[in-house]
């Protein structure tokens, strides 16, 4: 088991004939993902190293039974492919694209939620489940190993950093998921913690946050309220970041705070999460946490 994706996931790539779409579709396939198709309008009938290409997501779903989509479409045009995936019945949508205008994302997200689908990203490295040999994203597969730790992160490269450490400390991962770095993204820490709580294969979770917004505070609130009860470690990037170029008050008003690392760390610690100061120590800390909980 794992969350959201597994060895039975039937994955398509929207934008498969582009440079990155092709490179990463093949990398996913090589990792073990069941890549059943790709979508590029006008290229139906072609194939990308054996992966069949369709004109529309609906065609791809009808022909392959796809339930998961990996999106590589330029930011200016990425809103519609998300909606197309929803309309065609795709359950899990992983949007790699960075820099989508936030109002476009917000508008697509509205429909995603109404229809009860999962949107990971945009601006995410994606999701990977080593025990299921399923990777739907751009993360380097070789740093991962199967195991009991769930990883959820707001930052792409920091996730790799942490996963690499976990693996080097002999701690494999159940599922690793990047929430995405854009101002508005689909899934939140809370959404993912709910799934990790239900997943028997996940024994502990690493949560990687960063300054800005209030997603970490909401996660802390959720943990505190008993929604997530497994051991958790967290790292918050930006403790020493220079005072932001923030203008105006709206951001602070809406989040009920200024989104500093200090506020987030305080909230997480109050919820019983072990917060790590040095990013290079996350592996050790998680090893100790798991050892404690095993006792």
């Amino acid at each position, binding site marked *: 088991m794992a969350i959201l994706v597994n060895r039975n996931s039937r994955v398509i790539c929207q934008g498969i004939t582009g440079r990155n779409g092709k490179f990463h579709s093949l990398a996913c396939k090589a990792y073990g993902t069941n890549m059943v198709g790709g979508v590029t309008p006008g290229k139906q009938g072609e194939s990308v190293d054996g992966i069949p290409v369709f004109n529309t997501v609906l065609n791809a779903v009808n022909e392959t039974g796809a339930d998961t989509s990996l999106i590589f479409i330029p930011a200016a045009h990425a809103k519609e492919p998300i909606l197309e995936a929803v309309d065609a019945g795709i359950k899990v949508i992983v949007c790699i694209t960075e820099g989508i205008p936030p109002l476009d994302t917000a508008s697509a997200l509205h429909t995603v939620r109404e229809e009860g689908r999962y949107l990971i990203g945009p601006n995410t490295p994606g999701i990977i489940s080593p025990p299921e040999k399923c990777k739907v994203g751009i993360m380097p597969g070789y740093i991962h190993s199967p195991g009991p730790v769930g990883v959820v992160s707001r930052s792409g490269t920091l996730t790799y950093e942490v996963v690499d450490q976990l693996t080097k400390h002999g701690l494999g991962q159940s599922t690793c998921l990047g929430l995405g770095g854009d101002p508005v993204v689909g899934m939140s820490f809370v959404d993912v913690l709910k799934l990790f709580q239900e997943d028997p294969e996940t024994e502990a979770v690493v949560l990687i946050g960063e300054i800005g917004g209030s997603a970490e505070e909401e996660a802390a609130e959720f943990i505190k309220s008993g929604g997530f009860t497994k051991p958790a470690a967290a790292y918050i990037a930006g403790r020493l970041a220079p005072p932001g170029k923030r203008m105006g*008050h709206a951001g602070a008003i809406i989040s009920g705070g200024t989104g500093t690392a200090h506020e987030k760390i305080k909230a997480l610690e109050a919820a019983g999460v072990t917060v790590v100061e040095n990013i290079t120590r996350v592996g050790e800390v998680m090893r100790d946490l798991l050892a404690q909980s095993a006792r």
Partner: protein
Amino acid sequence: MNLHEFQSKELLAARGVAVPRGSVCYDPLETLIAARRLKCDIVVLKAQVHSGGRGKAGGVAVMSLEEDIRGKASEILGKRLVTNQTGPQGKPVSALLVEEVLQVDKEIYLGVVLDRKTGKVTIMASPAGGMDIEEIAKTQPEKIYTIAVDPLRGLTGYQARALAYRLTDDNGIAGQISHVITTLYQIFVSYDCSLAEINPLVISGDKVYALDAKINLDDHALFRHPEMELWRDRSQEDQLELSARKDGLSYIKLDGDIGCIVNGAGLAMATLDLISLHGGSPANFLDVGGGASEQVVADAMSILLDDRRVKAVFINIFGGILRCDVLARGVIKALKQNRVELPVIVRIEGTNIEEGRRLFEESQLPIRMIGSLDDAARIVVETAKGLKTAG
């Protein structure tokens, strides 16, 4: 991209929102003339910089016409204004907004922002507007009223009206506020803003005025509003940041002596935290992002090497979409072109790592490859301090 106060007010005024009478001046004499032309006893001079906290930093002056307006303008214009948000280098003041001073009966706060949590454009309003609004939000959150706008339906007239009636009982004033709310919302969505704020919106007699306004456009949607580039004030932006953005890079200037190339904002911040933990101080950050080509990486290196404060270079990359071999080729190209003597500490991991390592190793350049991130951070700090390293 940020707009100046006077630009924000222009957008509002063009849509029928009342703002104080005034004009933008670039010269002390012009300022004096503009002040006199307003034909009112008291005027205000406001430095036009991309930063909050102008008042406390001396960037705002309320003066009577009897006082030495020209002198005051000379004091402010052409200087760099240092506020609690600008960093020690401050921001240059090249323009002053000269305005009439209105009688203020009540200060209202109005802000529009995209709420990360709900994914909805959210309008916030409070009858307790002014400088202490963040404090009010913390201590008296019941005084902040919000509307979460349905992304597909947009803001409706009755939503704006209902919000206006929470801010005032007066029908005439409510009608005006309702119009301001609708206008501010429309500006927000039609220009893809990241922030649109009027604080304070003041009631003065039987009229409502936007006394100060801040409108920022989201950089990721600027491609939809090419005409707004004309309003960019390059003097308010760091030149290196600008040239980095041209290459699709993100550059942040800091106060130290270590030049850093990373990929991803999270890794940038973690690297900063780590260098600081080891007692060092970065000069800057260049985030090459995900899709960088060999040439973009080379350009990034060149930008970084332009900064004369840099004593050591730290390359900390965990390649995902960015492949390590592409990175290595870019770095090597830049170092060879720039004939750099600076010590370079490289720590790379990720996609195509073997090829990347091989390229660095075969480059015959003064590059140190360190496997452990913690070690690498420690070594670059020591190197910058000119100490011998233990590695």
